């Protein structure tokens, strides 16, 4: 992916740029809001990482300006404060995802990957497929290799979220946000226990586990069979 990083803190900027380059992405960096907006409107980016606080033009205004100009490049916004109200403001302002500093690089990478492939809500298909699993979002049914699988609503939501991004890592916090709508991390293993229940229902009578646990990062559902 071609990724634009707009972040005035050189350390953070380099930390993100180096990590993303190592993952094989093309990276353009900018340390200033106006400069960042100039690059962004130049186009050709698959995703952007934008800091909330920037010299020249703050991150929120940058995204608003970008959206007003009809540019819909996915934006991951970074913020130094937990910003309980900030978060809502950022998402309403046109950012696609929000990440609070400090963050682990794996978290940023996972979120960026999920962003790059996120279809708009209107364009989302009603059927999701990953390997031999088919999930119907409208009828709320799951079928694995022709066998119907009965899931609890939360287990269904969890599977759907994984299947929206097949082959991509979903971190614990991403799943907590998207499945449970929690923007904080409980000490209790909510994600793990729900996932193990989902697994046992999904895998009953099958040899292979389509859900992979990536240690220290999160979970992914395998794309192919």
């Amino acid at each position, binding site marked *: 992916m071609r990724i634009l990083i707009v972040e005035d803190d050189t350390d953070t900027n380099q930390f993100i740029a180096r990590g993303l380059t190592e993952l094989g992405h093309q990276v353009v960096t900018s340390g200033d809001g106006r400069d960042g907006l100039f690059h962004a409107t130049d186009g050709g980016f698959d995703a952007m990482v934008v800091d909330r606080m920037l010299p020249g033009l703050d991150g929120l205004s940058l995204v608003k300006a970008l959206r007003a100009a009809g540019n819909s490049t996915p934006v991951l916004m970074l913020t130094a*404060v*937990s*910003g*309980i*109200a900030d978060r*809502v403001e950022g998402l309403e302002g046109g950012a696609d995802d929000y990440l*609070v500093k*400090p963050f*682990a690089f794996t978290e940023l990478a996972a979120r960026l990957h999920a962003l790059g492939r996120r279809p708009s809500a209107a364009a989302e298909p009603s059927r999701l497929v990953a390997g031999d699993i088919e999930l119907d979002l409208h009828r709320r049914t799951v079928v694995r290799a022709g066998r119907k699988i009965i899931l609890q609503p*939360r287990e269904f939501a969890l599977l759907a979220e994984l299947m929206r991004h097949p082959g991509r890592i979903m971190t614990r916090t991403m799943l907590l946000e998207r499945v*449970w*709508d*929690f*923007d*904080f991390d*409980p*000490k*209790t*293993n*909510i994600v*793990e*226990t*729900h996932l*193990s*229940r989902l697994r046992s229902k999904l895998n009953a009578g099958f040899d292979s586990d389509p859900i992979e646990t990536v240690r220290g990062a999160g979970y992914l559902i395998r794309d192919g069979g």
Partner: protein
Amino acid sequence: MKRWWRGTFGLVAAVALGFALATLVIGAVAFETTHEALELQLDHRVAIETQALIDEGQDGHEGVAAAIRRREAASSTASLGYRLVDAQNRPIAGSLSTIVPPKPGYVELLPYKSNGEERIAQSLTTVLPGNYRLLVAADRAAIDEMDRRFILLFLGAFGAMLLLGIGAAWLVGIVTRRRLARIDHTAAAIIAGDLSRRVPLTGSGDEFDGVATTLNRMLDRIAGLMENLRQVSSDVAHDLRTPLTRLQNRLDEALRERDSELQREAIEAAASEASELLEVFSALLRIAEVEGMAARAHFQTVNMSAVVADVVEAFRPAMESSGHQLVSRISPGLTLSGDRRLLQQMLTNLLDNAAQHTPQGTMVHLDLESTHDCIRLAVTDDGPGVSEKEAPELFNRFARVDPSRSTPGHGLGLAMVAAIVAVHSGRATIAPRPGFGVYIEF
């Protein structure tokens, strides 16, 4: 001094001045009215006397002259004087030494001589048949005397009033200034660093004492917050020293280690210590953020029953797999004005607490119900509980029951709960043994 009237003295002086001016106007009107009334009365008297003379003289000038002579002989009317002249101004009768005005009617100020003294009289001239003119005059001494007394009395009263007004202004100014000076001194002392100073009360319970009491309460509150802040920062420093030391030890280890695999392990351990530290900081920041929230600005109606049910549903599998039993009783359709995510976090922290700090087989109850005036949330368990002494401390940052701190957590969960409850204007209490329970009322 600009705008002198804004000061107490100026204000009272201005009011006194206003009163004085009003009194002056009232005095002038009263004087004028009495004066006029007296003059009228005098006119009336003169007119009656003139009519009486004419009646007695039966329209002839001789009869009138005789009547004048009779009156002057009797000298019964000392304050009245008479003079009757013919067409050529020759005196016929009457001893009043003055010139009779040629035209009939009233003359207000008629000079005349009495025993060689110049005096002023009020007179009425009447024309009798044969062009004789009759003058009846009354001395104005009575009116003048009355005027003089009135003015004297008025000036005396007015002066006294003015003095009294100025005196009162001065006094009120002094009293106000002295009382304000006490508040001022206290404030100055606090600015200078003596935070324990309070405004002294006179005990009279007046307005000044009222203000002083409020100020003192405000100062107490600020002092409480300052103490809390001091406590928190020293706690933060204290509680972060241990993990920072561990972090440093791990990094030292990594530096000394030759074996690259072991070195990597040490660095990983250091990284995990660092991320734990960051977690503590995030939790502290979040608590501070919630506490300082310009809250209620973005509050919305939250279906509390649904939020509680969701959190319970999220926790149930994990709690069951850790050997706890989670029993919930949720009254449906309870709503409150708040921040849904914060309320979720509050519930999560409470259930985290129950799951982390109680042994296997513990039963955890979560009840949400409405009483007559509030929504009541209770998270209770039949675990070992805490002592009565420890219970109220637990809402403070870094407060933990286990002094050895071997159990997981940083002692920030309940502090966050307290902050969230406070921002929702709720009340939270902890019930000590047997078991452990947090009761929250919104």
